[in-house]
């Protein structure tokens, strides 16, 4: 899932100067799961913004609504009335949601209320970890399902580097060395011989380095 983190309320409030009718729009999917922009967080953000604006002498009306998803045209449509009534929308969806909402409701300003941080999962209550960097050419079959692009600080294709220490990465003793994990996983799988083969340099053209990407499925495309 996409993992996001709440922005500082003041940072959002700064961008609302001069607006009289504001809508805080949550998204009930990924950002709800990571507790950054679901219904609960939408209510918290709206309440905090009402107070922040009042303290600045701005008597703006701040309403709230949560869409099932802000990255699907049909589901965006369900909140169209509330969006249309607002002068500006603070979207608590990920960047994809903000982009879709901005396109659908052009020229209305749709501003981000969260920072979209990574693709990951909930490791345990209150802790989300990055697990994939969407490189467009998945090779984790060689690394026991552990992604060296997302989890190694240097995205090394052949590791570990000389900085690996007691299973921890040289960037931070609290961060696992991805290549240490890979070796342990391959050992457990009886596939350590995977590492005898040198992995050639990755072709980053399939990742962001190749420019914006798209996926087309011809038999479904209209």
């Amino acid at each position, binding site marked *: 899932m996409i993992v996001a983190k709440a922005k*500082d*309320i*003041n940072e959002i*409030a700064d961008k609302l100067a001069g607006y009289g009718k504001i809508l805080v729009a949550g998204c009930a999917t990924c950002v709800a799961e990571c507790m950054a922009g679901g219904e*609960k967080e939408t*209510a*918290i953000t709206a*309440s*905090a913004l*009402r*107070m*922040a604006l*009042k*303290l600045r002498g701005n008597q703006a009306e701040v309403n709230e609504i949560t869409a099932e998803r802000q990255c699907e045209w049909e589901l965006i449509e369900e909140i169209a009335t509330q969006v249309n009534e607002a002068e500006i929308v603070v979207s608590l969806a990920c960047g994809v949601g903000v982009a879709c909402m901005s396109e659908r409701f052009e020229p209305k300003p749709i501003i981000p209320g969260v920072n979209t941080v990574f693709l990951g999962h909930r490791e345990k209550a209150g802790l989300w970890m990055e697990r994939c960097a969407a490189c467009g050419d998945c090779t984790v079959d060689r690394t026991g399902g552990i992604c060296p692009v997302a989890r190694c600080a240097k995205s090394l294709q052949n590791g570990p580097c000389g900085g690996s220490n007691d299973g921890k990465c040289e960037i931070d003793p609290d961060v696992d060395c991805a290549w240490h994990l890979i070796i342990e996983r391959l050992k457990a799988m009886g596939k350590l011989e995977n590492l005898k083969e040198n992995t050639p340099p990755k072709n980053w053209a399939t990742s962001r380095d190749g420019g914006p990407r798209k996926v087309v499925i011809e038999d479904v495309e209209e």
Partner: protein
Amino acid sequence: MSANNPAPDKPGNGLYLVAFCCANSSSKATELSKAVFEVEGVTIRLVTLACSSKLEILHVLRALETGADGVGLWTCPAKACKFGRGSIRAGKRIERARRILDQIGLESKRVFLAELNPDDEKDLDEALKQTAAEMTKLGKSPLKT
């Protein structure tokens, strides 16, 4: 403090405290649940929770947004929590609510957090008196001016 000394149901012009209290930490609090009374000139609405961890960040924010000058949460001591980690979790929620208030520039010391010894009635009286005194020092919420 006495429920026989009821204050108006609305905050009015005086200082107003919404006091959340774990039902397990004080039977007196349970008796007074939903009661509105006055302590040292501060109007207090006492709300008991099945466990202090039932308190949501939104409860704190909405109380302040809608007219409270302060919000308090009284939990059981961490080790006495009937549900294990309730008091600890509640404390962390209060911390997060305070962080949000700091961000928007509303004094986070308007949010009180303290422990009560289960069934020590004096504790609740004392806690409310002390909080009322601190509230008086802080004065009205800037949201009300």
